[in-house]
Structures are given as C-alpha cells and as structure tokens.
C-alpha cells in the first residue's frame, strides 16, 4: 500500500479472511444475502476494533472458583450514529456487539442549489454530549457528508475526540479531508482503496453500498 494513512486512521489487520470477505462484497455477482452476511461480518470486526480505542479502567472480579481475575472495564457510555441511508446497514453489526445500544440518525443530502451536503434530519439520544459516538457510514469517498455529520455532532456538544468514525472502505482523499478538519477524531476502516474516479466514486470500491444492502439497485 503506497498510501501511508495518518495516525488518526486505524486500518483493520489485513488478514486473509478479511480480504476474502471484502472480495465477496466487492464482486458484482454476489447475491444480496451473501452481501449482507459478509458485510455484517466485517462490520462486527470493525466495531470490535473501534471499541478497543475507548478508555478503560482496571477492574478485578471474582470468578466462580473464588479466585481473582484482574481485568478491565470500559469507561463511559456509547451510542451509534448512522448517516442515513447507507450507515443504517451497519446497525445490525453494531447491535451484534453492543446489545441494545442507542442509535442516533442523521440524514444528509446534496443541496440541489449549492451542490453541497445539507443536513435534512437529525435525531439523537438526549444525553449524546456525554457519550462516545460510533459514527457509521460504510464508504468514505470525498468525506463531504461525513464532515457535515461530524459538524452536527459537535453542534450537539459531542467532543471531537469522543467520535469514532467506522467505515468499510475508504480512500486517501476522504481520509485527508476528514482528518484535516477534525484531527482529534479517529477513523476505523477495513480497507483503503486507491482513490476516487472521475465520478467521485471510490476506485475500485464496490458500487452503492446502501443500494446493494437494502436491495434497491436494479
């Protein structure tokens, strides 16, 4: 990989089975059931890795054998925030790991007049400012809507360093844009692709993630 991601970016260990999973979801011939299954598998690994970057405290528990185990406990509460619609595809994977987690939603669409991303809708848990936010969007392309979403979270009082942005596929352009704007935030990604093509799609990418996950492609 020629591109050296900045230190804010955590790339999942590039194991063979991760590569085999992304190969399946990138393949245009993959059936929807498989697309969902393998996406969920990658998302679970993403969430597990993301949680590794939350603060912990030491905790000692007593086991049924009466002995002590010196473990850890996670500090602080979390919530998921999905960027609609594609980000919602990551909610199942999040719930597989964090049962009954609270999930906020953000709808961002391109403004017809200005061609810039515009916030249309946001609904968060009322105490979001005190939580760590796992921001969910499967593809990080130009970073336009991600930046808008992060701005919205910050508006609601979430500290930048308490946001973890999880995505499956990212590219150098999107990473650079987001990191330049929010250097205290972390990005967890499964794979970094070569870049954007002339239509601003990720190259090679996997097409429209939301359409393939929710079955709305033709």
């Amino acid at each position, binding site marked *: 990989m020629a591109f050296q991601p900045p230190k804010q970016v955590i790339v999942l260990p590039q*194991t*063979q*089975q991760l*590569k*085999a999973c*992304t*190969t399946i979801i*990138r*393949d*245009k*011939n993959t059936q929807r059931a498989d697309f969902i*299954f393998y996406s969920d*598998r990658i998302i*679970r*690994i993403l969430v*597990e*890795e993301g*949680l*590794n970057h*939350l603060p*912990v405290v030491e*905790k000692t*528990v*007593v*086991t*049924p*054998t009466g*002995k*002590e*185990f010196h*473990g*850890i*406990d*996670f500090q602080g509460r979390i919530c998921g925030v999905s960027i609609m619609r594609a980000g919602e595809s990551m909610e199942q994977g999040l719930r*597989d*790991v964090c*049962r009954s987690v609270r999930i906020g939603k953000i709808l961002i669409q391109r403004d017809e007049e200005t061609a810039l991303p515009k916030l249309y809708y946001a609904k968060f848990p009322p105490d979001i400012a005190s939580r760590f936010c796992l921001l969910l969007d499967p593809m990080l392309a130009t970073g336009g809507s991600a930046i808008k979403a992060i701005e919205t979270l910050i508006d609601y009082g979430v500290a930048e360093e308490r946001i973890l942005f999880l995505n499956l596929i990212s590219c150098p352009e999107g990473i650079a844009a987001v990191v330049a704007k929010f250097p205290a935030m972390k990005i967890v990604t499964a794979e970094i692709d070569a870049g954007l*093509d002339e239509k601003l*799609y990720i*190259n*090679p*990418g*996997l*097409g*429209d993630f939301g359409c*393939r996950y929710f079955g709305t*492609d033709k």
Partner: protein
Amino acid sequence: MKSKLGNHVIAGEGRPPWYRSDGQNCDCYIVGIAGGSASGKTSVAQRIIKNLNVPWVVLLSMDSFYKDLTPEEVEIAHRNDWDFDSPNSYDYDLLLETVTKLKEGKQVDVPIYDFETHKRVPNKVNTVYGANVIIFEGIFGLYDKKVLEMMDLKVFVDTDVDICLARRIKRDVAERGFDVSGVLKLYQRFVKPSYDTYVYPTKKSADVVIPRGLENLVAIDLLTKHIQRQLQERKMQSRWDMARICPPEELPSNVLVLEETKQIKGLHTIIRDIETSRHDFIFYADRLATLVIERALNELPYEPKDVETPTKKTVHGLGLKAHIAGVSILRAGGTMENGLRRVIRDAVIGKILIQTDPYNGEPQLHYCKLPPTIREANTFIFLMDAVVGTGAAGLMAIRVLLDHDVPEDRIVFLSFLAAPQGLHTISRAFPRVKIVTSYVDPILNPDTLYLEPGLGNFGDRYFGTEHD
C-alpha cells in the same frame, strides 16, 4: 450402569481412552471364534459379550465377507448346488483390511451381504467405530494366516458333529425353508467335506477349545474373565496425572492465543465475573466465540481471486480455498456453535459427547456423530471446546477424528480458555493440530481440575444448569 449425580444422568458406560497419552492408539483386542456349522459360535460370542457387559464390544461375522456371486453362480446357488462352505467363498483381502483397520482403532465400513441375491447390498454398509474388543466369528474364523496373526485370543468351538447336524436340520427346516433331504444333500456334498478338510484342522491354531459350545458355561466364564483381565491391564489412568504435569514455560508453537486487546480482556472480565447474569454471559460468550472463529479462519488456505465490482473495476482479492466443518465436544463445546454460524452461515456441525467418569475422572466417549464430509479434500475441522484443562477430552476428540481418517493437519482446535498443561499434552500428541484459544490461565487445580482464576463451569453457566 446408570449413575445419577444431582441433576446429571449418565446412562451406560462410555468408552474409556483407547490410546496412550502420546495420542497413539492401543491395539484393539481381537477374539477369533471358529467351529463347524451350527456348532454354536455365534451363541458363544453373544454370551461373552453379555458377560463383558460393556458397550464397546463389536461382533463381526465372517458372513459379511462372502464374495459377490456372478449371475451364473447365483443360478447355481438357487439350485442349492453352490458350495458356500468352501474357504474360497470369502473375500480375504477385504477381511484382512477390515480387521487391520479395526485393530488400529480406525472406523471401518463392513459390507452387508444379501443371502437372497448373493451379493453385497449396494451403497449400504455397517459403519463400525469405537470398539475396544472385536469378536470375530465364522467357520473359517481361524483359517487365514494373516488374520490369525492379529488375534489376541483364538477359540475353537468343538461341538459334537452329530449335534451340529441335528441343529442344522432343525434350523434350516424351520427358518430357511428347506426340507430334510435338501439339508442332508448339502451336508453330504459340501458341509461335511469342507469341515473335515478345512475347518477342523484350524483347531490346531486355537488357544482354547470349547467342547459342547454354549452349554459349556464354565469355559465361557473363564474366557470372559481372561478378556476382562487383559482389558484391565491396558486401561489408562491418564487424566489426573496430566493435571500434575509441570508444563514448560513457553507455549508450543502450534498454539495461537488471540492478541490481548482491550476487547478481549474486557470480554473475559465479564464472563469470568461470578456476578455476571446468564443473559450477559451468553451474549458475551457468543461475541468471544465469534472472535475466536475469525482468528482461526486466518489459518486456512486462501487463493488469489479476481472479481469485477458493479462499477466495472477489477479487484485482486482472495477466496477461501477450504470447506469448514464444525465439530463440538459436548456439552460445553456446543457453546461455540453460535459464533461459528455467525461467521460460516451454513457450516455443517458434528457432535462428540465426552463426559468425565465420576469415579476415576477419566474421559469417556458416549456418542459421536460426524458429518460425512469431514475427510473430503480441503475440508478443515473446527473442533470446538469451551475450556481446555488437562486436555484429556480434546485428546480423545482428536483421536476420534483421526480414527475417521481426518488428516491431523486439517484439524483446528478452538476454545475460549486453556491451561498450559492441556495445550502441551495435545501438542505433544498431535503437533500438526492447530490450537486457537482466546486466553491462557496459569493454573490448573489438580484437585478440582478447574482452571484458576478460570471461569467456573462454562457449560453450566451458558446452559443454566448450575446450582444457585
């Protein structure tokens, strides 16, 4: 035998270890019984089995090894002109192969012979596995020299020929639709000459001759006692010794422990805590299982695979070059099946029930149902257990897989938690089995056989069968 310990019922006796602590099989004990037609061989064999009163004894009949007859020969047989009493009627190659594999403790497929068509029933066999004692009987039971060499005890049932003939007439008229003259015709043409020429001389090879067959209770009783004593001498008492082995500091090279991330440590903190509710225990155990399975998957072979994306770009990816079959060591290994299915949606799952004998702490094999695909090329077995203590159950389960012709290097043994003793024991016996676990605890308590700090009884906590 049926023992009841609180809410725990073990009906019958499982199969005690049939291998040494280095994982190699001990030879199975083979008793050969020969004698004339209707001398009472089968009855003697059945009486011995009844007296032994253990489930891991298999009766193998030489009738299963009759050769297939050609259509012309079947015609002759239907006219009662075919000599079934000739030693040439049997397939000694197949017999030798079968007895050799049984002796080595392997699983074998015994043909089923159809006496109507005089052919082996196509696509149907008796699968025999798990015998510590084989009783092989037939008129030519002591005839083939190579088979003879494999026997531990050779018995000739020497019943008076007049009594044999009388029994044969009675049986063939009542059960096989012959008339008396038909029986006598066969007897004079085939049965008697064959007995005199081939069968009776094999008596010389016998260790024990039983006059009067089944009536001879004293002889059968003596035989049974001898077999029991032989089995007792071979019995292994290994598990408790295993717990007292002081293992080397370093873990064996075929053991992979998951990287101790905050997640792993956090999950372990929850499942080890005695205060954790079952609801949470199950949820976090399933999560941990998924991580163990994902880690194990990385040990399998992959091959380059090019695919095209919906945006018509080519991706040089990877494809898994293996099939996976799960096998859980029941009861606790079943707790990993959820994790397996989360990662390999349609994985076939076999089961092996191994329980600890409450009287001596030895593992016993009670049940084994394995998918037929386990020995196919490129199939890897994810053998699952919750906690590896002494390694005794894992050793037994791996032995079962090897006995079913699964290559050693296609077994991956998975667990949540392991003790160094067990990891070393399994690695020493089966160095080519990969072992994946999420955590290694330092202590295996030699008295309770629990790991420390450990997490108690994993199966009880997952299935909710612990005492409050």
